[in-house]
Structure formats: C-alpha cells, structure tokens
C-alpha cells in the first residue's frame, strides 16, 4: 500500500510544520541531522530516486544517535527527548513508503506538536498548534481516502479536492472542540503537575543566574521576552521604587560575582512585619527553570513552597517550569539586618588580594581626605556622575583588574560594571557591600492593568551596610544615567539597537502582551482552584476527581447523543430530488427490518433480494420497487403520490429466526 506523491508531500509538510519550532531549541548538529533525511526525501520524491540501502539507513540512524548524544551530552531530559523524537521521525521519512508509515509519521507529528507546550506557553503557540493539527488532519484524510482506493482495488469516483479535505478536517476539528472544552473544564487537575520534570535535565535558557560576570546581563538586554507580570492591589509603587530583587551576590574573584552559601542557608532575622507591608501584589512568573521568585524589598510573606533567605532572596523548592503565580506583600520601610553576623561581614568585605591597585589608591586618597561612611558613598556617586562615564551596552572586554580598567581606561559600561566597581570600591573603604541582581522598572499597561517586566529590564545594583541602618540600596547606574531608572534599560541608550526599540513596534508588542496576559489568566492559569471555583459557583461544592471524571464522560456522552441523528442518517435526502427522498425512506424501513440495500443495485434487483429476505412482505416490496422504477425510468411515470402512498403503507415485519 504505497502512498502517492501528493500524500507523501502532505506527510512531509505536516512533519516540517510540527517540528519547525523545535528546531530553534536544538543544537545545530542535531538540526542538521533532522533536516538531512527530510531534504533527501523531498529530493528523492521529485527526482524519483530509489530507497536508500538498509546499511546506509542504519548507519544514518547510528550517526544521528551519536550526534544527539554528544550535542546534548545526555539522553534524557525534555530537550534531548524532543530532539530524539524529531530526528527519529525525519529518519523514518527515508523509509516511509507505505500508508501505514505515513499515518504513523503524521500521528507522531501531532505528538511532536504537543511537546511545544513543555517549552512555551506563548499565546501564539496554540494558534500554531491548531494550524499543525489541521494540516495533520488533512493529511490523514488524504491518506485514508488513498487507502480506501488501494486496499480494495477499487476506486470510487470521488475527485477529492484540497478544499473538500480541508473542509472535512475542519468539521472534525469543530466536532472535537466541545470534547476538548469538556476535558479542559472537567479533567481533574492537581496542584502540582502530574509528572515532575527531573531537575537535572533542566537547561535554563534565560533569566538571571547565581553568578554575574561582565556580559551576563548584557545578553538579557537583547531579550525582549516577558520575565513576569505583576498586578498590584492598592498602592502602585513609583517607577524608581520598582527594584525586583533576585539573586544576591557576595563573593568576587576579580572577574565574576557569586552567591554566598551562608546567607542562603540562614533565615532573615528580624523579619518584616506583614501588617506594615503596604505593597500587595500578585506576580505571574514566566517559566525560567530557576528557583528565584522576584519581589520588591522587603517581602513580608513567603509564597507557597518556597523560603526566604537572610539576604531576602525567595527560593522556590522546585524550579519554575510552568507559568507560576504567587502573591506577596512587601514592606519598603523595613530595616534589613541592623546587626550583621561576623562571617557575613567578612564575606561582604572580601576582595581578591592585590587587585585593582589604582582604585585602591583612589579610595585611600579619599579616606585621607577624611571621607568615610555615607560621605564616601556620596563621593563615589559624585565621581560616577562627574567623570565622563558613559552608559553603553557595547563595552570592551575587561582583563583581570577589571575595576581599574573600567574606572580609568574605558569609562564605558552598564549596570553590571557600575555595580561591580561601586561594590569593590566600598569594600576597599571597609564598608560591607554586596550586589543584588534582578529587574528594575517594567512597563505599565493601563489597559491590561498590570505591570510587564521583560528580560531586558534586568538590572544589577549594590547594597551597603551601616551599623543600625542595615543594608541600604545604592544604584550607581542611576548616578551615571538617571534615564536608565526613569525610562528603562533601552530608554537610556541614544540609538535604537533592537528591532523592538522603535516605539510603535514596542507598542504593538506591548499590545500583544495584553492578549497574552488574558490568555494566561483564563487558560494557562486554570488550575484545581479555578476549577473548584467554577463548580462551586453553580452549586457543586465538593467535586472529587472521580466525580470530575464521571462528569467529563457524562458531558461527552450528552454531546455524542446530540450528534447521533447525524451519524445514523442514511444519506441526506436531496431537496432537488423528492423521488429519492421517498425512496430513501423505503430503504430505511428495509434497513430497520434487517435488509440493507447495496447502492449499485437497481430497484427491481433490490426488490428481488429484499423479497427473498422478507418473504411475507414481498408483494408490497415489488409494488414499491415497480412504482419507483416506473417513476424514474418510464416515459409515463405514475404520480409521486402513488409511490408515497405505497411507502407510507409499507411496514415490513422483522424477520424472525427459528431457534
């Protein structure tokens, strides 16, 4: 049962569309391994090449598996698994010549299409998925018709056009919508995912990490995707107050900043008082496969399944692999650590020995001038402000004495450089200090009533500690480029350097985000809680999962009942042909009596067969058939009413079998 060329191209198209978004997530060698068999098959189909010998096919499979193994360094984990599925499917293409194979490939393409949702919950993905599903359905329809022709060596004279196949597929999809909706509403949902994704297999792609070296945040500036969205209840903080706290970095090795193990293990002491927390808000965090939950200073409540460290990072127990919503309250007036433990103080002062001598000299000069404590902090900020520092994303790479080079040679950099240099200078002046990374600002959507924070809003700032005053936030970048804080990271740059920098495109992008937000609210976020809310609103308070499953089947059953008349319709009686409508009625009665007519039999032939089957009604059958035959074929047809009358009177008795 070979597929014809048209079916083959449909199959290839389905697979291509299904795998296209996955290709962007795969390492380049794997992409090549996935595209090679696909391109070969297309070429083979056009040029009429023969099947590859088995040895080459097996060889290709082996090469593909090795490529996968070395590119992903593991077989396991979502990405590697999806790559495996993709590559295996395209490899299957080179040996798929039968309808069975084609159907297999199309079905797996549907599966591949579903794997998208493990990576993204973007609003566009369901649309893309719908296109893929329609394409797959058209292909399946085509294959099915193809098979019907071939399997029985007979070809019904149906010239199936693309539109008829498309129409049929759309009809099928429409029929599936109520069932899909029922599953969405009724399928039992758990608070946690049904299956956990092993943590080791996560491969973070974006967002902040627990280390910071020159360039690490710069990459984020180019990433326009949303990091999280915030809805405030009540007071909305000013833009300059929107410092979203993420990883806190203590240890500096001369080039890279790292987190501190002590601070992470400790509980904050004292803790902010929840009753004083004035900022109450709900964060919808995009999956980033990391542990940090972002909050404004200082979080007074702990979101579910997470803990707050002594430096006020909120760490979730599991990494965020799907859209996560948490509510939190913050108290901006809280004083963080009026007393600092000795080991933490040591960590907040530690510097690599003998590095950045020029900077050290500058600090010592200021100290000799009698500056210390807060006054020195101000002096450094003034220095940043008055020296010709330049805020730019294009900064030269720095060597081992990075702070020296930055302060005296390049004078060009962005938040990372300023925060890093400032913190190092503070430590040189014996002021405990640390770096906080996170996001600053956000775009407030008046229409959507929420704040959108993008990856490009990533920011780094410093905190200095003074006895009794605790940790105080100092943002040296603000001293250099106040616009960075006022307008957001990209607003601080003189020329657009990204497609989305153009304001109208940015506006469009922000508009799309409002739709995405609604989608998140209504669809992605729909969880066990929202499910219960819906049922309790119609008076069903205690829906247990088994009850949900039962309701699901009841609803689907009811829907199927609605479809029943359409399913058992013999064939739509045509309004143009009243004779046929009457005749179909007759055939229906015969069918009810256990005799099914073959479409290729003429009326009198049919009457003979039916009479044999229902001998006691033979006379009536012959009469009807004769009337019909005459109505249709003779030169002097009897009036239609005669036939109608005869059929009206026709009530065949069901044949009784002897036992």
């Amino acid at each position: 049962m070979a597929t014809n060329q048209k079916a083959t191209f449909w199959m290839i198209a389905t697979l291509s569309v299904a795998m296209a978004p996955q290709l962007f997530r795969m390492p380049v060698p794997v992409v090549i391994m996935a595209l090679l068999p696909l391109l070969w098959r297309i070429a083979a189909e056009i040029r009429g090449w023969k099947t590859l010998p088995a040895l080459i096919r097996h060889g290709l499979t082996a090469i593909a598996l090795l490529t996968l193994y070395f590119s992903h360094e593991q077989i396991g984990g979502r990405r590697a698994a999806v790559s495996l599925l993709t590559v295996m499917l395209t490899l299957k293409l080179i040996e798929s010549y039968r309808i069975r194979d084609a159907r297999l490939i199309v079905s797996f393409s549907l599966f591949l299409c579903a794997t998208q949702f493990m990576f993204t919950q973007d609003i566009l993905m369901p649309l893309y998925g719908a296109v893929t599903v329609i394409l797959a359905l058209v292909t399946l329809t085509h294959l099915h018709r193809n098979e019907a022709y071939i399997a029985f060596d007979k070809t019904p004279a149906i010239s199936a056009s693309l539109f008829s196949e498309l129409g049929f597929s759309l009809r099928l999809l429409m029929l599936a919508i109520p069932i899909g909706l029922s599953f969405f509403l009724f399928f039992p949902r758990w608070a946690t995912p049904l299956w956990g994704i092993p943590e080791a297999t996560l491969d973070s792609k974006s967002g902040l990490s627990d280390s910071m070296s020159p360039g690490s945040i710069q990459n984020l500036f180019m990433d326009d995707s949303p990091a999280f969205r915030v809805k405030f209840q009540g007071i909305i903080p000013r833009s300059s107050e929107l410092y979203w706290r993420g990883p806190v970095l203590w240890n500096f090795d001369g080039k890279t900043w790292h987190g501190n193990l002590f601070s992470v293990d400790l509980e904050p002491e004292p803790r902010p008082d929840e009753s004083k927390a004035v900022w109450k808000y709900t964060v919808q965090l995009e999956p980033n496969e990391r542990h940090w939950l972002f909050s404004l200073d200082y979080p007074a409540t702990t979101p579910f399944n997470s803990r707050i460290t002594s430096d006020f990072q909120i760490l979730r127990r599991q990494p965020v692999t799907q859209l996560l919503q948490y509510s939190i309250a913050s108290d901006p007036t809280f004083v963080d650590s009026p007393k600092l433990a000795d080991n933490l103080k040591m960590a907040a002062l530690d510097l690599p020995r003998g590095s950045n001598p020029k900077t050290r000299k500058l600090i010592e000069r200021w100290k000799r001038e009698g500056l210390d404590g807060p006054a020195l902090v101000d002096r450094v900020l003034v220095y940043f402000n008055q020296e010709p520092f330049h805020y730019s994303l294009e900064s030269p790479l720095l060597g081992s004495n990075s702070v020296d080079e930055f302060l005296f040679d390049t004078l060009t950099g962005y938040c990372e450089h300023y925060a890093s240099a400032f913190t190092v200078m503070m430590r040189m002046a014996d002021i405990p200090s640390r770096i906080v990374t996170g996001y600053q600002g956000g775009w407030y959507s008046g229409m959507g009533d929420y704040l959108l924070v993008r990856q490009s809003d990533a920011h780094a700032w410093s905190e200095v500690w003074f006895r009794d005053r605790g940790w105080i936030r100092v943002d040296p970048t603000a001293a250099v480029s106040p616009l960075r804080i006022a307008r957001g990271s990209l607003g601080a740059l003189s020329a657009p350097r990204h497609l989305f920098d153009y304001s109208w495109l940015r506006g469009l992008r922000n508009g799309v985000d409002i739709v995405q937000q609604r989608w998140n609210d209504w669809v992605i976020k729909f969880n066990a809680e929202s499910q219960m809310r819906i049922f309790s609103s119609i008076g069903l308070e205690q829906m247990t999962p088994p009850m949900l499953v039962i309701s699901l089947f009841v609803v689907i059953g009811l829907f199927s009942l609605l479809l029943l008349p359409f399913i058992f319709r013999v064939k739509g009686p045509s309004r143009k042909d009243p004779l046929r409508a009457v005749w179909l009625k007759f055939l229906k009665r015969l069918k009810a009596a256990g005799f099914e007519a073959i479409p290729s039999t003429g009326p009198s032939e049919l009457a003979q067969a039916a009479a044999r089957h229902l001998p006691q009604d033979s006379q009536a059958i012959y009469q009807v058939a004769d009337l019909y035959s005459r109505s249709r074929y003779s030169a002097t047809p009897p009036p239609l009413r005669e036939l109608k009358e005869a059929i009206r009177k026709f009530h065949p008795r069901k044949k009784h079998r002897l036992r």
Partner: protein
Amino acid sequence: MSEPKDQQQQPRAVEGRQARLLEAQKTVNGILLGKDQQVRLSFCCLLSRGHLLIEDVPGVGKTTLANAVARVIGIDYQRIQFTSDLLPADILGVSIYKRNREEFEFHPGPIFSQIILVDEINRATPKTQSALLEGMAENQVTIENTTHPLPQPFFVVATQNPLDLVGTFPLPESQLDRFLLSIALGYPDPIAERELLTTEERSRMLDKTTPLLTSDDIKALQNDCEAVHVSDDLLDYVQALLKETRDDRWFETGLSPRAGLYLLRASRAHAFLEDRSYVIPEDVKIIFPGLARHRLTPSSGFAQSPDEQIAELLEQVPIR
C-alpha cells in the same frame, strides 16, 4: 383518416411479432439447455443490429447456438470456417469473365447471407478478417469499384477459441469493437448436462425446428426496439458507467462513445425482450459485461480477469 386505424392496428401487430419472438427465444432455449442468459443476449444483439462474438472452448455449443438462432428466425444462413489460407474473395465473392456475354459477372460469396456463422475467426489472416469486418461495419462490400449492399437483416455470429492460440491472428481491438456483444457459453450445469446426454441429439432437433419469424419481422422488431424509452436518469447511469471505465485505475482504456451507443441500443432490445416499454438500469447491467469484456483490458497489475473486473466496476457505480 387512415392514421388512427394504423395506430390501433400497430400494437396488435407488435404483440404478434413480439409473441413470436419470445416463442423463438424459448425454442432456442429448448435446444441449448441451461443457457437462457446467453440466448437472450444473442437475441438482444440481433435486435439491436449488432454482431455477436462467442468466445469459448470447443464443444460447448457455439455452433449450435448460432444454428438454432438462424433456424428459428428463418433467414438465409451460411457458415464459413475460417482457416489460415482463406482469402477475401472466398468470403466476398468474385467477378468472373463471361466470354459469351463479354463481361464480368459477379458471383457473390457467402457473406451475402442474412446470418453468417464464422467459425474460428482468429484463424484467418488479418486481410481476410478485415474483409469480413468491413462488411459488418458498413453493411455493404465493395468489390472492384462496385458497391454491393448486403442483405438485411445482416447478423454475424463469430466464434473464437481463447485457449488455442497457436497459428492464430488475434483480432485487434479496433476490430473487436465491431462486435456488439461477446459471450462465453461455459459448461452446462449438471441438470442441463444430464438432459443433454439423455434426450435426442441436438442436430436432429435443429432439423425439426421450423422458422417462427421472417426477415421482415426481424426488421420490424429492430425498429420496435428503437422506440423503447430511455429516461434522463438512465442516461445518467449509463454515463456514470462509461466514465468509470475510463478511470485508468480499472482498465487501460475506457469505453468509446460508440460503445456507449451500442450499450444503450442493446439495453433497449433487452427491455423489449422483457416486454417493457422503458429501459431500467438492470437492463444495462445485464448487457454491460458482454459489451465490455472484449473491449476492455484490465490495467496492468491486476490479477483479475476482465469479467471479475467488470463485475466489481458495476458494484461501484451507484444507481439512484
């Protein structure tokens, strides 16, 4: 004022002819036992002015059928055994110079008969075959610039042995097309065979058979058949059938429009034989295999015989 009279008389005349026709059919059935269907098809062929091809192994009654039909319809009958050395002149006739009258005189060959049995048509050379087939197509023969019309009715029954192919010249498709129907007789069923073995010899029965029809009757009956009504719905069905044969998934080439005309003509004759004034799809379905089996070659790759293919094709075309 004679017209109404005519109209009144005609049905009676038709009835008379038709009754005798049915009687003739019955007589042939009595001689050729258990072959009602083939006999009916032979009569359809005769009534629709076509020619008949009988393809079967020797000894199943091909000649008997042709003989019996010729006998009951009481028309001029000739039998020609085709051999490889037969020449066109042996069929068509020759002009011989008459010295006393100083002119050529035409001596008509066996083709100048109303019913001709051509035995083993595939044994003669293509030249001789085409001499006959031209006559079948044109109802006239041209010899030395003189056109001689053939007697009417003109009915050729040819036989062909499909198994014995050594030293034969199989008819090309264009010539097979001259035959309206092709039938196979097949072995008789056990009851018919027992009767055949026990009752008197067929040839003696043939001798005793008296003609029931005249050639004028045949001509009139042929005209009667043409009056059988064909409705639009039936034409739809015939066209659907023709269209289906042209789909290359079944046969290498489909049926020609001429074959379609033949199909309709023979279906009319069949309806007439059934004593019906209109054609129904069942008539078409009975005629169709005989009409199609020698015209269609199954597409390569099919293990089925043309007959099986045709039966399946008929099952595929729905009747409204």
